[in-house]
């Protein structure tokens, strides 16, 4: 763990790249970026020890805006990439960024199994309940009655409940944040990164362009009335019965992270080739 001196030596600005974000003005993801850099500074980790992995979508642009190592991967596959990275380089801190479309639809299957495997990494999903980058199609978390020209009268489909799915699938840490509270989000990210195993942090991040109604979230969010539990059944009951705007750490499990044991790496090319012989 970083010492106080190390933490004081790191500034959020150290984790920002020179690339200017191209999100829409008012987008919640600006605040999420701010929370990332504040959390990294609080952790006192050098940027080269952090890897931010993402898929496709507005939120997945975030690795380019940090000075950490980054991998802007294939749509929905960020968790698969990150899992491979973490098991081979357990010394690195791996943070995965996604959105509700990339993470719950295209990458939905990876989400389930990443929770189940419980590899020590942090999965941050910026949920705006819409496909913003492709101009406003309903996503898995869009409300069934949300009416657009692309889904007249709404989809009529029950929205996906990511926190309950994460819990049921074995995530070891579950939290919900609101992008408009970047300090609170940063402190939860710090705890998520420090917690062993697979940490899932959903950040409600409004899309002001295609979901201007989400500006109201600011007045709807509130701190979770009770602290985190380590009882999945209790956490599931709380999450399933809350109003969807409870902010805070909701579950903190104690399952041992999965880390496969590897043998000594093969330095000899001939021996390596022999391994691949048919």
């Amino acid at each position, binding site marked *: 763990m970083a010492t106080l001196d190390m933490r*004081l030596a790191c500034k959020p600005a150290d984790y920002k790249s020179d690339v*200017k*974000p*191209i*999100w*829409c*003005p*008012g987008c*919640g993801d*600006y*605040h999420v970026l701010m929370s990332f850099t504040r959390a990294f500074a609080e952790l006192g980790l050098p940027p080269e020890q952090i890897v931010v992995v993402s898929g496709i979508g507005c939120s997945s642009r975030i690795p380019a805006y940090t000075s950490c190592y980054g991998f802007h991967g294939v749509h929905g596959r960020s968790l698969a990439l990150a899992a491979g990275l973490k098991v081979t380089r357990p010394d690195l801190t791996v943070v995965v960024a996604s959105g509700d479309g990339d993470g719950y639809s295209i990458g939905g299957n990876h989400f389930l199994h990443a929770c189940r495997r419980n590899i020590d990494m942090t999965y941050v999903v910026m949920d705006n309940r819409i496909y913003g980058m*492709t*101009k*406003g*199609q309903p996503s898995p978390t869009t409300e069934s009655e949300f009416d*657009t*020209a*692309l889904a007249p009268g709404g989809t009529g489909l029950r929205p996906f409940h990511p926190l309950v799915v994460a819990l049921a699938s074995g995530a070891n840490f579950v939290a919900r944040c609101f*992008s*408009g*509270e*970047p*300090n*609170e989000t940063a*402190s939860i990210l710090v705890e998520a990164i420090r917690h062993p195993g697979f940490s899932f942090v959903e950040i409600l991040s*409004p899309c*002001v*362009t*295609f979901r201007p109604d989400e*500006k109201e979230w*600011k007045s709807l969010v509130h*701190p979770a009335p009770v602290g985190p539990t380590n009882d999945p059944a209790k956490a599931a009951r709380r999450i399933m019965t809350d109003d969807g705007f409870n902010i805070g750490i909701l579950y903190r499990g104690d399952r041992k992270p999965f880390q496969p044991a590897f043998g000594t790496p093969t330095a000899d090319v001939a021996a390596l080739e022999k391994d691949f012989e048919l």
Partner: protein
Amino acid sequence: MSKPDDAPKITSLADLFAVAYQIEADAVERYETLAAQMETHNNPELVAAFRDLARAEAIHRDEIRRLAGEIDVVEHARKVATWRRGESPEAIELGAAHYLMTPWHALQLALEGEKRALAFFASVVETTKDADVKKMAEEFVEEEAEHVNLVNRLLRKHPKPRDTWSDDPDPPNAQG
């Protein structure tokens, strides 16, 4: 935004300078972020407005650093100037930005920030038991009141736009 229950506790002059410094530094950062956003979205009038506001706040920030003398406000701010849930009073809310916003909107955001800062320092004056802190906080109250007046004067040059200011003949919701 700043919430009364999570504002930093000010128990010394060093704390007050550090918090005042952080308030101005956060304002500079936000205005620069907003200027960069507007540059990306080709709203040059707002780029100029936010850069001007960032420059003004940078002057205030540097003045506080000078006033603090021997106190290392940057270092001390990292220890004491933290808001857990909310943010410092002049941290402009990025969620309020819009790609078609006008200088009037920018000044409204600035005005809200200055008023929050004024209220913050006024609460320090009311609650502190330290005479030096009280005296300095009173000076900050006067200064913030002057900033409020300055923004109000600037607003006279930029009247409220018509209600149709956000109408876009070529909206981004091409598929909506």
